[in-house]
């Protein structure tokens, strides 16, 4: 970064406006990779063995998946709570809200419709 080689020993507390943000380091990416590998392995293990109480497996898989998405966001996409990141975090929160509404709303409405739908036999009965 030769054009940003100015020493950071200035007396001002703020960052120079054209400073390039460091986008993580090899250590950050490697830690993220290790976390992601562990979580992926755990997901496969939970789904393929009887380690978890069987009715709890979908919930366990969901928790592991959300944890892994969090790992990707923090270690790969560098979403943090730093001052430069406020807008990114707010946009992410809005995105999560919309995704939750779409997915849980669709499942709820379709399950409700399904529960109230007449069986084909009953429809035949009415047409007779």
């Amino acid at each position: 970064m030769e054009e940003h080689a100015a020493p950071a020993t200035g007396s001002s507390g703020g960052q120079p406006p054209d400073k390039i943000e460091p986008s993580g380091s090899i250590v950050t990416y490697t830690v993220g990779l290790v976390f992601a590998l562990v979580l992926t392995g755990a997901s496969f293990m939970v789904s393929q063995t009887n380690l978890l109480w069987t009715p709890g497996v979908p919930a366990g898989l969901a928790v592991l998946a959300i944890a892994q998405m969090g790992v990707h966001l923090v270690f790969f996409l560098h979403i943090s709570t730093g001052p430069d990141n406020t807008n990114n975090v707010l946009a992410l929160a809005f995105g999560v809200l919309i995704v939750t509404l779409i997915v849980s709303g669709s499942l709820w409405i379709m399950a409700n419709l399904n529960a109230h739908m007449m069986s084909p036999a009953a429809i035949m009965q009415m047409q007779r």
Partner: protein
Amino acid sequence: MARGAGGPAPVRIIVGYGFWIFLLSDIILFSALFATYAVLSGQTAGGPSGRELFELHRVGIETLCLLFSSYTCGLGLLFLEQRRLPAFYAACALTFVLGGAFLGLELSEFAGLVARGAGPSRSAFLSAFFSLVGLHGAHVTVGLAWLIFMTAQTAARGPREFVRRRFLCFSLFWHALDIVWVGVLTLVYLMGAR
């Protein structure tokens, strides 16, 4: 430091923010297909179900390919920032090979499914499966084309400011695809194969 102090944010921050909003809208698009799949996953119309169709070995290898390509892509971004071009090209090549391996495995899975009569027209479950997984695969294809473009542009124009900014956007796109894949892996394959 108070927010907003210190003048306008650097271009790199603004571009990253805008691209992040695009990625979130893309994830919302995926969420609609996830919801469709979750609703339709039991509607096999007498055809094969996920338990009979999915091969978890292949899916595990796909997952590792995509995860490691995400890692090498991140390293590529670091090398580009540090102006270490040979290492950058090596990271790009690895990312491309791993992403291509993922795509190859996915396409051979699709071909195998169609060959045994489990194509997208067989049942609502398979329509939803091919839409969701196929859209992710289409995104990976676009990402691979973008990666070739970025490598060529870096070679032609050098690691300038705008090239580095574009590669930052590419790396965000590639990492976001990996996040979507975590959802596909969990909802479609791991829950479906039980």
